[in-house]
């Protein structure tokens, strides 16, 4: 028993030493700030995007939205237990599906736009499909992420490493989709290799739950949104945080993030009902989008970059273009 305790202590000590060395190593490569590199960049043109559509139909808080790859349709889930497929152009509801639970926390279109998946507090992952042959990646409150084989409804790979709920995931636009990043209530974001099932990098810095993550369009970096009211940009190759998006006046948690097509703009949805638009490179706030009357719970730029969709606890979804 004492031998085990001793070697456990050794391991704890070694972990601490390794941690310190990692921090020192990362600090060595921190030779400049992103805002300084971006100093000479032209200022942004005036921001002309405004609220164009309001999708009304949910009777409870909108908890998640996802754009279809056809750039026109959207799926949303709500606390009213409904999954709705929208035509965002016309604001028509094309399908309304009643779920078995009222807390449907997440939803997503398949890349082929032939199916939608959703999951909630009943611990079920449900697929509505015409045709389906994709694999599916999910994040869960059991502290894991899972890759599923849809045809057999069985998990192919479980990604274990976080020590609290996994709040969000995003698959890399590069690396042939073999890398994904996860956000967790343990304050950490992790980068995973789908092929090996293990994490390859950890990114610390947030002082509270990390609620959402999204890859920079080049795949070299990702942004995270946290209950600590900040968003942070972490670069995979520098293995560290390279920018932080915060203001003293912003004190509510950030729930959702996404980039514009080029990565220049960072959209972030907060619990103070606002969407803040940040200049990703200069680190400054460009504008605040007002409109929602409750917490902004989800947010996504359409695949062609023409519009921003935001879902809110005020039961509506807005399309900004």
């Amino acid at each position, binding site marked *: 028993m004492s031998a*085990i305790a001793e*070697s*456990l202590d050794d*391991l*704890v000590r*070694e*972990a601490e030493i*390794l*941690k310190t060395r*990692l921090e020192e190593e*990362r600090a060595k*490569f*921190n*030779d*400049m*700030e992103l805002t300084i*590199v971006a100093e000479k*960049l032209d200022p942004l*043109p005036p921001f*002309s*995007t405004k609220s*164009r*559509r309001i999708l009304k139909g949910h009777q409870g808080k909108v908890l998640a939205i996802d754009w279809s790859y056809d750039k*026109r349709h959207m799926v949303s889930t709500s606390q009213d237990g409904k999954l709705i497929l929208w035509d965002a*152009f016309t604001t028509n509801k094309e399908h309304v599906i009643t779920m078995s639970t009222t807390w449907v926390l997440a939803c997503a279109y398949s890349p082929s736009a032939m199916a939608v998946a959703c999951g909630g507090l009943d611990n079920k992952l449900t697929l509505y499909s015409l045709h389906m042959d994709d694999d599916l990646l999910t994040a869960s409150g*059991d*502290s894991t992420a899972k890759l599923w084989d849809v045809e057999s409804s069985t998990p192919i790979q479980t990604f274990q490493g*976080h*020590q*609290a*709920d996994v709040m969000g995931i995003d698959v890399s636009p590069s690396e042939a989709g073999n890398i994904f990043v996860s956000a967790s*209530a*343990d*304050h*950490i974001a992790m980068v995973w290799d789908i092929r090996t099932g*293990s994490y*390859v990098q*950890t990114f*610390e810095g947030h002082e509270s*739950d990390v609620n959402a993550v999204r890859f920079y369009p*080049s795949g*070299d*970096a990702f942004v995270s949104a946290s*209950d600590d009211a900040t968003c942070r940009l972490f*670069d995979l*190759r*520098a293995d*560290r945080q*390279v920018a932080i998006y915060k203001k003293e006046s912003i004190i509510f948690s950030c729930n959702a993030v996404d980039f514009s*097509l*080029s*990565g220049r*703009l960072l959209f972030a949805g907060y619990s103070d009902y606002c969407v803040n638009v940040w200049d990703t490179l200069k680190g400054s706030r460009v504008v605040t989008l007002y409109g929602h009357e409750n917490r902004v719970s989800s947010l996504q*730029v359409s695949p*062609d*970059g*023409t*519009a921003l969709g935001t879902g809110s606890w005020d039961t509506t979804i807005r*399309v900004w*273009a």
Partner: protein
Amino acid sequence: MSAHQNNSHASNQLTTNRDSVPNRRVSDNFTSSRSYAPDYHSQNLLVSQRRICDQLREEARCDRIKVSLVCKDLVRYVTDHQSSDALVVGFQSPKDNPYRDKQQCSLL
């Protein structure tokens, strides 16, 4: 009644076990408003600590690039793609915006 006592006793033990190994990892000291995750790590502390060390060793070995260089790449990606980013530069013609407001007649 006795079942309840057993339960609380078991959970006390679990807590004690966890407390006996302080600072397994710096990041352990988080507090979260919503963590219902089962504690995989208390199942076998030695195994999980070994895994953490292996992982840290692996991470220490990773090749890094200077922040100044990665930032240049981040900026370059934006300058290469910004001209086609509708949310940044807008649409060439308002007609290109699929969400534009319909032309409205105005009475003077």
